[in-house]
């Protein structure tokens, strides 16, 4: 078992899928000889050949639509969209086709495809390169949306996504690609796709986060612990479907909840979780549910990016507000 970065873990999962089954194929812009702009597919073309790991022309609609057709006809495509900001052109194929093919053919044609896309801020990338639009995807019935928060989670969740019989958009927090290492075993074991993970148990308040925000929330939880506040941290992991039971259970215990995401506040996925609590856990709530999110504005360019991103300090401040509520 070696210490791996998230990008290494992703590559390891892709390798294993390609090894396991000749029907798995990988395509996208620059995934071949270049190994992907983040190196997620580094060496895979060399190892598995240029028909199984293949560069596409620069055309996101056909990348997504081709994945639909290939999956329908028996291949298991894992396609890459280079950045989530360029995934908008693929939404039509996702919403109108990938997510519906099973339903509209009553199960005759299915769509076991994965669309990978790096998302989120924190690396001061050029404009349109730091988007977090997972909430839009999570609104599409029939789609799965999955996000890892660590190298090991990335390996297990990506394997699960790849093996799932339905279309999955796998969004990768690019800020974590190389930010930390952890031991990851190449054991081919997939994690469950539809389960949130309690990263850290606690009693006083629940923090729900995903992707890169889990680490920030963890830091906030550390700081809170020093002040005697015990936060339970949940890594949502599956943004669609949502593991409502785990969140409700936690909030029924703690009575307080904070939700953290990078995407803008309004109509972000945090709203769904808060709304679920407002319906199903109202009587357990001891304090307002606060969302700590990107602001309701266009993500600023690099110079102001830090001021836009939620961080441990903002999470902690909101947690304290929630704890002091009376």
């Amino acid at each position: 078992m070696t210490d791996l970065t998230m990008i290494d873990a992703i590559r390891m999962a892709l390798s294993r899928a390609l090894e396991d089954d000749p029907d798995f194929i990988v395509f996208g812009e620059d995934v071949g000889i270049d190994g992907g702009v983040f190196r997620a597919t580094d060496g895979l073309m060399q190892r598995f050949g240029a028909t199984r790991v293949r560069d596409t022309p620069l055309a996101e609609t056909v990348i997504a639509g081709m994945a639909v057709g290939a999956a329908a006809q028996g291949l298991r495509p894992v396609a890459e969209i280079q950045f989530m900001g360029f995934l908008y052109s693929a939404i039509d194929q996702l919403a109108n086709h990938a997510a519906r093919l099973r339903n509209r053919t009553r199960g005759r044609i299915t769509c076991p495809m994965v669309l990978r896309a790096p998302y989120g801020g924190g690396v001061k990338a050029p404009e349109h390169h730091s988007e977090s639009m997972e909430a839009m995807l999570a609104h599409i019935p029939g789609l799965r949306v999955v996000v890892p928060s660590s190298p090991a989670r990335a390996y297990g969740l990506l394997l699960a996504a790849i093996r799932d019989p339905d279309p999955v958009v796998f969004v990768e927090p690019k800020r974590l690609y190389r930010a930390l290492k952890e031991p990851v075993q190449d054991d081919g074991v997939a994690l469950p796709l539809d389960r949130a993970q309690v990263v850290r148990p606690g009693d006083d308040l629940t923090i729900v986060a995903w992707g890169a925000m889990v680490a920030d929330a963890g830091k906030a939880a550390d700081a809170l612990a020093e002040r005697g506040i015990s936060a339970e941290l949940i890594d949502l992991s599956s943004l669609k479907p949502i593991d409502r039971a785990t969140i409700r259970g936690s909030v029924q215990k703690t009575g307080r909840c904070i939700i953290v995401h990078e995407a803008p506040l309004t109509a972000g996925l945090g709203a769904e979780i808060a709304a679920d609590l407002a319906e199903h856990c109202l009587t357990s709530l001891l304090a307002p549910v606060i969302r700590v999110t990107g602001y309701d504005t266009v993500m600023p360019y690099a110079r102001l990016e830090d001021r836009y991103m939620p961080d441990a300090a903002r999470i902690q401040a909101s947690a304290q507000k929630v704890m002091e509520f009376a």
Partner: protein
Amino acid sequence: MTGNPDLCEPDCSVFLDAEGHPLRALPDFAQGSEALVALYSMMVKTRTFDAKAIALQRTGRLGTYASSLGQEAISVGVASAMSEADVFLPSFREHGGQLWRGVTKEELLLYWGGDERGNDFAGPRQDFPVCVPVASQFPHAAGVALALAHQGAGGVAVAMGGDGATSKGDFYEALNLIGAWTLPAVFVINNNQWAISMPRAEQTRAETLAQKAVAAGLPGEVVDGNDVIAVREATMRALDRARAGQGGTLIECLSYRLSDHTTADDASRYREDDEVSRHWMAEPLARLRNHLVAEHAWSKEDEENLLRDSRAETEAAAERYLAMPPQPARAMFDHLYAKVPPDIAALAREMGDD
């Protein structure tokens, strides 16, 4: 020269003129009458089906319906050239091609009647259902072709769309991709001269739609879409190319939409009756029938039998369709995912059996 009025394309492939006279030697399959009678019969059945579907819609027993009146030769010709293992990806005006491939009339009625079970046809299990978002089937065809190439059994993906579809990014991206990757795919355009109210001439400044293939470095060809022999022959050549590993082809079939766009449309708002009447002179059924009659391969009696059988088949299918109870409401959740999530399953249970 094409047999169609107003549609003179210098390099249009055609075998029978509008009256059904051969303009040149017919291809092999059209030498005897058997294949042609089969094509003719399916075109008649398609037209009969269309008429019934419209009648059902007018009486509130079917949803909005897109007639293929006058364009029967295109999808029937295309489908007749395909082998069973090829994959057909229709738009929404290819009833004839679907019927040829083995989708039943009842299944088609179910689909157009607003019931997903119509897409679960017993026939060609790998074929795609009707595609409503214009041109979005072309990217699928690229993917299907990729899979077929991977499988190595010589299958070809055949996608169809309208003249309007050639303006949409999906079409170009997919065309470029099947070119770049040399995939076994054939894209067929039913140029019926209208995209709802937009005439072909306003859709693009390109003189032909076939020439859009140039953008992808692929061969493009114009065919008289009212001559089923020409459609089938061009499709056969394109399929051969694809099977030989030479990649994709774009085929533009010139035809004319003799009906409204759909039952929700009123074409008299935007086009002259004259134009429609003129195009009736070149419609594909009479053309082929004239040829068959001239060849002594078709009699008045044959015609009557065929019409009677077509109607009877269609009526029987319609009755089965009308007798079919809708799915229970909870069926809306049955095929959302392979594994239904717990909250959805609970909802379905709540709904019970009606």
